[in-house]
């Protein structure tokens, strides 16, 4: 019997801190969502239709952000589910886990092919947070499938280790060619490869999100769960979303209208619906 609502598990590792707002963001787009403990039963975990690894500081970022969590048994289970085609989104620290586990970019599945290095910013170091403008580079991933290539959206970032890097020759070009670069940091009008602060961490060619070849596993540094309602958008934000927020000032629309991050979770729901209808099939 076909299920009416997709079920998502948000994985709670020790040290994450965005699991509740991520659950609310998923639910805001009509999906059921549970917070699932990292040491929970794998038999139960595989019953879900999709997974989100939320932001935070797993294992207090000890050794390197995401490095210890990437060795947890639950990641083996998620790896198998991703190979089977289920969507998995890693947000910020979750993205670090997906890269450290070799799930993304997954040219050779399971091989660590990229890193998320310390931010490089002029005259400062460490943690940095700001709203970023993002250009959609691929409209086939599980976080962008309801968007169009070339769209510009705005989502906040907050991290100290978010610079996508690789030593594998030709990998970056290959990721762009394959459509695996899902989002890049952009200027206000979508200009490519902007300088700091539009590129907030010095990421290679402004990469903000990368997927596996099938587009069902995505490592993204921006935090869409912090932008699912228009009320979360600052009035001072330049660009389309700031204008919408200012236009809604003083009305109830602020509380009911979706924000830019909602599109990410809408995409997740659409990706699952399509998969459950069998149009996409197992990867």
């Amino acid at each position, binding site marked *: 019997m076909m299920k009416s609502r997709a079920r998502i598990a948000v994985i709670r590792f020790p040290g994450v801190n965005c699991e509740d707002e991520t659950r609310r963001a998923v639910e805001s787009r009509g999906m059921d969502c549970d917070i699932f403990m990292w040491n929970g039963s794998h038999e139960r975990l595989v019953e879900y239709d999709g997974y989100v690894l939320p932001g935070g500081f797993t294992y207090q970022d000890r050794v390197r952000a995401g490095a210890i969590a990437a*060795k947890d048994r639950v990641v083996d289970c998620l790896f198998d589910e991703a190979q089977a085609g289920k969507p998995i989104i890693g947000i910020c620290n979750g993205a670090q886990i997906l890269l450290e586990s070799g799930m993304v970019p997954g040219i050779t599945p399971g091989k660590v092919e990229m890193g998320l*290095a310390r931010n490089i910013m002029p005259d400062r*170091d460490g943690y940095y947070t700001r709203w970023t403008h993002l250009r959609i580079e691929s409209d086939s991933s599980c976080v962008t499938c309801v968007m169009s290539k070339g769209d510009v959206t705005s989502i906040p970032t907050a991290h100290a280790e978010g610079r996508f*890097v690789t*030593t594998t020759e030709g990998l970056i070009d290959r990721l762009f060619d394959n459509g695996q670069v899902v989002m890049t940091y952009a200027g206000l009008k979508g200009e490519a490869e902007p300088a700091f602060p539009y590129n907030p961490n010095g990421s290679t060619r402004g990469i903000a999100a990368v997927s596996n070849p099938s587009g069902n596993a995505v490592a993204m540094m921006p935090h869409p769960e912090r932008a699912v309602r228009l009320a979360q958008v600052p009035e001072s934000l330049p660009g389309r979303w700031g204008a919408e927020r200012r236009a809604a000032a003083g009305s109830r629309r602020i509380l009911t209208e979706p924000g830019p991050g909602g599109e990410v979770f809408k995409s997740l729901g659409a990706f699952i619906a399509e998969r459950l209808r069998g149009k996409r099939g197992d990867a």
Partner: protein
Amino acid sequence: MRQRIVLTVALKVTDNEALSALEALQTKMGMADSVVGLAREVQWELDVEADGPESALRVVTEIVKRTNVFLNPNKHRSTLTSVPHAWDGLDDDEVAILVSDRDGAESLAAIAAGSRIGVTGLRKATRRIRWRVRLAEAPSREQPGLLALMRKIGVASDRGTGLLSNPHSQTALVAFPWGEEKTLEPS
């Protein structure tokens, strides 16, 4: 002229980061039989303008004391030396794995020392982590598989191997107690 002094900082109290890393190696990566201990030191390479090594040592001592950004004397112990060998101080059953960022930003400590606290003379401060890995059996030059074991500990290659560095953002080298060091590449 530019002189380099190395400040080595370690916790006096329990190092939870080292404990977490050891626990990951032993229980998540199946190395309980080969790795029995792990300690961590932070090494700061501090480049200063000074007339010579003794003058450099005085300058760095003053910088470390005045800035309070490299260590907290209540919980850290530290030593200042000219550039040490990677294997200095290792016990017979230890190897060292040193991890550095490939293209790290100028460290916050250097920025803070220069622009916020007003210390002059510090030209560069780079940071690396020195992990001291205690093995169940003392390593030897002839030991088969020793370098492979160090790779498995030190360089993330795939889901199951490598913890202490990501080769895309960091470099790692291993140093043995008999006075030899090698770059660690992914397997």
